[in-house]
């Protein structure tokens, strides 16, 4: 029984990583109705920028805020320069654009900061949390910030005019334009916010996994999976999905004999696909009715 609780707790700890990333994924999906494969790399690059600022002597929270601003602006710039011209192109071409962006960012990061791992500080300290041997104060802090972000996003989408405008622009663009919403800038705003949330995710994740250009590759897949599981339109679902994926993965690794350990990711993904077959919009997603 102790092993079980240990693994569940450890799963929650890793799940916090996935949940963070999943929030950024949901954010971009709300804005453009698609998944951005380069999301992870953008988060990684932002984290490197904050690391560099700290190397130059800027204190942690100063670097944090500066990086947030940089990421927000960067996200908008990337969207305006690279993806607005592609807005009329077929969606598959846009996906190719995401992949190209991934390649560019990853390569540049590798050249600028090389591939050796770097230690990344945490504002929460790394001591055991409440004496628990499994969750450190940092991981508790990570869960806390994720929940705060989640609440913030929920409030934004449900109760603010801009949030409503963004949702409208993404799901029914023609109608949104008819009521005077500038759908083009909504998309740019969405990119900026997603980049900013991604940078927070990166800065929270780096202390655990160590900062290096390839650090987000695995995380992004889990972020997607968690977001899809929870429902791509639901920030709450994304966060819950992250924790569920983390827990399930650990339990599968511990209790499924022989293959459980080697097939952790495929099993987690298989679980999600099964859920999708039953509930196509994810656990908390909105069902979309398609008309001919």
């Amino acid at each position, binding site marked *: 029984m*102790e*092993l079980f609780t*240990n*693994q569940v707790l*450890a*799963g929650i*700890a*890793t799940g916090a*990583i996935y949940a963070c990333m999943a929030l950024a994924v949901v954010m971009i999906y709300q804005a453009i109705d698609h998944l951005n494969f380069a999301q992870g790399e953008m988060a990684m690059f932002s984290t490197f920028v904050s690391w560099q600022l700290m190397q130059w002597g800027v204190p942690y929270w100063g670097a944090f805020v500066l990086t947030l601003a940089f990421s927000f602006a960067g996200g908008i710039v990337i969207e305006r320069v690279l993806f607005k011209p592609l807005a009329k192109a077929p969606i598959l071409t846009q996906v190719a654009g995401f992949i190209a962006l991934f390649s560019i960012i990853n*390569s540049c990061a*590798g050249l600028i900061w*090389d*591939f*050796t*791992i*770097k*230690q990344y500080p945490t504002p929460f300290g*790394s*001591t*055991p949390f409440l004496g628990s*041997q*499994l969750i*450190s104060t940092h991981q508790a802090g990570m869960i806390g910030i994720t929940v705060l972000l989640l609440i913030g996003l929920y409030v934004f989408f449900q109760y603010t005019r801009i949030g409503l405008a963004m949702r409208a622009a993404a799901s029914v663009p023609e109608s949104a334009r008819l009521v005077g919403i500038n759908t083009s800038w909504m998309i740019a705003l969405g990119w900026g916010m997603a980049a900013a949330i991604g940078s927070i995710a990166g800065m929270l*994740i780096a202390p*655990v*996994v*160590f900062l*290096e*250009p*390839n*650090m987000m*590759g*695995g*995380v992004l*897949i*889990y972020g997607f999976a968690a977001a899809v599981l929870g429902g791509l339109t639901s920030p709450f679902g994304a966060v819950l999905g992250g924790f569920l994926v983390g827990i399930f*993965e*650990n339990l599968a*690794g*511990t209790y499924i004999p022989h293959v459980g*350990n*080697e097939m*952790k*990711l495929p099993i987690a993904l298989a679980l999600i696909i099964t859920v999708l077959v039953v509930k196509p919009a994810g656990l908390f997603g909105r069902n979309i009715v398609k008309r001919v």
Partner: protein
Amino acid sequence: MHVMQQLRIAALATAVIALTSGGALAQKKYDTGASDTEIKIGNIMPYSGPASAYGVIGKTEEAYFKKINAEGGINGRKITFVTYDDAYSPPKAVEQVRKLVESDEVLLVFNPLGTPSNSAIQKYLNSKKIPQLFVATGATKWNDPKNFPWTMGWQPSYQSEGRIYAKYLLKDKPGAKIGVLFQNDDFGKDYLKGLKDGLGDKAASMIVMEESYETSEPSIDGHIVKLKASGADVFFSVTTPKFAAQAIKKLAEIDWHPLHLVVNVSASVGSVIKPAGFENSQGILSAAYAKDAADAQWDNDPGMKKFFEFLQQYYPDANKLDSSVVYGYGAAQTLVKVLQMCGDDLTRANVMKQAASLKDFTPDTMLPGVKINTSATDFAPIDQLQMMRFKGEKWELFGEAISGAIE
């Protein structure tokens, strides 16, 4: 193109005839890729993709050959170093090696990196009788001169390192309960096998848990939790740098203090220990065959001084603390020695012959006591390692340089 092909065949045939004629004339003999003025060396490295961290090795070697050229070359011949990116993908490795051999016409392929890539090109290079020299992987299978006479390793094999740890444990901690965390690939499985072989009959009773992980996992924390729960009091970390650092950190976080053994690849102070935290790394054991550039104890060592001077002049951007840079230097220096030993006989067969005749060669970066020795039946140049313990901010070597060979 046909004419070129015929010319090349003729040249090769002439070289073969000259070799087999048994004449010990001090005349110049060349295979494709060598001439009076040039020696062409081919290489593949993962400059992109999941293993791009190792691309530095190729860059270091390139810089080293520049240095040799600036100092007059090898017996008056300049080195042309042609290196391609294989992105750690076997099909790409095959394509790039074929390009090196058939398009660039190199004399030999030096230090190709990665077990999958080398496995893919081994048959091709052996069938074409082109040296696959000093491969950059510790897989044990490169020491097989009977079946693959053109392939030779360089670094100590993973199995031999595993056996050294086994020897140590049998002697110093015979009642140990060992928990192993290993990467689920050639690298990890080879080490595990070495450990088990070294422990012999006692392997089954001593190893209480074998936990594998995939490189795609963001964090291995869950595995550490499992290993602690197994009751192990020795933790054998067969991990690459990123995961080794995560393990060290997690162990400290969950307040678990077993005897911690980490493999040589991840013993770098700059790439692993420092990011993980010196305070978390006290008492960790490992083994080494080369000096660690981050370690202050070698600051006045003549060999390392040469290394630092080389970096300053030819590769100033290098991250000195990266053990891959030290590695590249040592391997390149070994190749240069072999080529110098060839003299004017730069045929591929002679290159292999000289490579198999190294006697007590010590590159600048090897630990004192570790010597490179090869023979016609021993294609493992380095098979000694010395154990070390981390104390304060550096590694303290202890004991003697031990050979990992099976007794």
